[in-house]
């Protein structure tokens, strides 16, 4: 398994601003993933972050809105840009080690946009 932390745990932001969410894992991992969980909904994958390369975005998500960094094997950030109330969600990161076939999730960041 892996121990994953996210910062901030929650935030309330104003429309039009941006928020950067950090994800830190206690060991080196191959892949890191970012998910969105809208209120009362299941999880939707935003993008996959591989160290040293551009993130791969899922349909409906674009880099200008959700820029992602992955500077090393234990850390990644997701920025939610030019926020609107529709961005109010829980954002979760997950990690997978090479060959493990299992993703482990962080505690999530609860974002409210006013």
């Amino acid at each position, binding site marked *: *398994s892996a121990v*994953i932390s996210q910062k901030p745990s929650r935030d309330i932001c104003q429309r039009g601003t941006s928020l950067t969410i950090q994800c830190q894992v206690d060991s080196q991992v*191959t*892949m890191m993933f970012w998910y969105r969980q809208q209120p009362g*909904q*299941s*999880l*939707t*994958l935003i993008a*996959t972050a591989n160290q040293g390369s551009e993130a791969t975005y899922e349909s409906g998500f674009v880099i200008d809105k959700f820029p992602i960094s992955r500077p090393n094997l234990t850390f990644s950030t997701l920025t939610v840009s030019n926020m609107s109330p529709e961005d109010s969600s829980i954002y*979760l990161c*997950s990690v*997978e080690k090479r060959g493990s*076939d*299992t*993703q*482990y*999730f*962080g*505690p*999530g960041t*609860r974002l409210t946009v006013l």
Partner: protein
Amino acid sequence: AQSVTQLDSHVSVSEGTPVLLRCNYSSSYSPSLFWYVQHPNKGLQLLLKYTSAATLVKGINGFEAEFKKSETSFHLTKPSAHMSDAAEYFCVVSESRGYSTLTFGKGTMLLVSP
């Protein structure tokens, strides 16, 4: 393409009675299947996973699931519910692209009454 159907959005049981959370999946390949649990205001915790070994999989906290290929099902059970089991449960199917690609069901909220 892969998909997951959780047949019940809510399941209510009394403490000490059995739990059954139903899940059907669709996958083009031999899938890996998971159950995750999300307690209120928490991240996702892995309960158990199936990866083509034994069809009856034992997980944490007394939960188990049985993979039935002929029925394309992966139902989660527990013989005796505890109040602390009250949470949302997600059935997840995974296909590998070199890393796992998860598709989540919509979730089942388990309510446990005294």
